[in-house]
């Protein structure tokens, strides 16, 4: 009782861990700078709803995809990336992280404006959508594809344009046609290839950007599951924050809802609330598309874990909207998991699942008490992880796992 009073434990009705099948429509974005954010597998993603049940990925697929994404991020950060042996046949923005992140927003493209549901991704840069005539292959999407011939604002980029050179970040070959082509490939084998072009991007009626650089996909494949493409929120010159920097000063924010049946938002520009606590971007990731942070401490049930600071500083940390489960250096994860297990002895543990090794059977419980988990970042920013971010149900209430995983190696 003392620990609850002091705020070291969460008390949860176990049913609240399971996803709801109905969309909570009460949340409405009222700010003109904000877009509604919906989970791609939840009931709020209207545009994909019809085939949602058939297309919804299993937990095993979600976690496998997450593993691919993490491998891809690590490969990009490594000077000996696993993708280096692949041949580039087009100008390439290569090795981008897997494009199947979880959250999507709807934006307008073209003149007249058409709406497209795009996955938003802070771990990649190029915004792209599938285009007509889809010269090679396209996956199925719910909205009609962008048709450049029906938009008065669409323009291809020529090979001689300086913009085309922006794609050539890792020594991709020169243009083989007068028109600049892009190719993005993701860690799971998904890809998009097509024309590098400019188009009018409409975020809201008062937030319209002419000549927005994007990819008009003619050959696309992968686990995009009905979304029309991807919105790149990374850090290079091609990303949406960079292209709209004059208006928004490279400032954007989002909130991801506790449940996949609720909505969040993605906002650009505006004022920063005084309640926001900032941690500096890590210099170690300055030359990468990723937003690097420095974790300094972890706590479980109000107790700071004894982890040498060098464990975090050696490898560094990136924050990513598309990775589902936080990965920690293996030493830090072991300490977290061990401390968590010590405070969960009232509940039967079960076998691990995919990337998870700390799982419990709550099927005989109505309510449970779980320890709070805290993460501290450089600059004294302490973050109490929300109760929705500590456990992950993988098989109803029979198997609910600690929603963290370890990297294979502390330093590699």
């Amino acid at each position, binding site marked *: 009782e003392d620990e609850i009073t002091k705020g070291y434990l969460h008390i949860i009705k176990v049913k609240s861990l399971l996803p709801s099948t109905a969309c909570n429509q009460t949340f409405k974005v009222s700010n003109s700078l904000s877009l509604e954010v919906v989970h791609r597998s939840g009931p709020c993603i209207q545009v994909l709803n019809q085939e949602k049940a058939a297309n919804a990925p299993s937990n095993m697929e979600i976690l496998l995809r997450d593993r691919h994404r993490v491998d891809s991020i690590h490969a990009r950060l490594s000077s000996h990336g696993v993708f280096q042996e692949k041949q580039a046949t087009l100008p390439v923005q290569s090795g981008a992280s897997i494009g199947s*992140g979880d*959250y999507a927003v709807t934006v307008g493209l073209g003149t007249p404006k058409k709406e497209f549901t795009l996955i938003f991704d802070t771990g990649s840069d190029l915004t792209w959508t599938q285009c007509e005539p889809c010269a090679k292959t396209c996956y199925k999407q719910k909205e009609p594809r962008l048709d450049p011939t029906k938009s008065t604002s669409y323009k291809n980029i020529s090979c001689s344009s300086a913009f085309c050179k922006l794609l050539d970040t890792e020594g991709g070959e020169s243009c083989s046609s007068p028109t600049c082509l892009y190719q993005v490939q993701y860690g799971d084998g998904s890809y998009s290839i097509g024309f590098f072009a400019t188009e009018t991007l409409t975020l809201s009626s008062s937030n319209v950007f002419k000549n927005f650089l994007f990819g008009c996909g003619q050959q696309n494949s992968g686990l995009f599951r009905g979304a029309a493409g991807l919105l790149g929120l990374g850090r290079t010159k091609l990303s949406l924050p960079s292209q709209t920097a004059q208006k928004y000063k*490279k400032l954007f924010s989002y909130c*991801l809802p506790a449940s996949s049946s609720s909505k969040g938002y993605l906002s650009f520009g505006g004022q920063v609330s005084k309640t926001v606590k900032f941690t500096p*971007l890590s210099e170690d990731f300055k030359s990468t598309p990723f937003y690097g942070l420095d974790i300094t401490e972890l706590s479980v049930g109000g107790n700071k874990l004894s982890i040498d600071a060098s464990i975090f500083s050696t490898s560094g940390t*990136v924050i990513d909207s598309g990775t589902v489960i936080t990965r920690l250096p293996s030493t830090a994860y072991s300490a977290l998991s061990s401390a968590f297990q010590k405070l969960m002895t009232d509940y039967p543990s079960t076998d691990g699942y995919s990337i998870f090794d700390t799982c419990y059977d709550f099927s005989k419980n109505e309510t449970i008490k779980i320890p709070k988990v805290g993460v501290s970042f450089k600059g004294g920013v302490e973050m109490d992880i929300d109760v929705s971010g500590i456990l992950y149900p993988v098989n109803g209430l029979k198997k609910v796992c600690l929603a963290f995983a370890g*990297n294979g190696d502390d330093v590699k």
Partner: protein
Amino acid sequence: AAIFGNTQQKTYQVVYDDAKGRVGFAPSGCN
């Protein structure tokens, strides 16, 4: 690298301020 994933970001307002070289967090950000 460690990766701070979206499950752990839930309900926080996450602010990316690349111009000032910082990332911020505020609790109850979806309210």
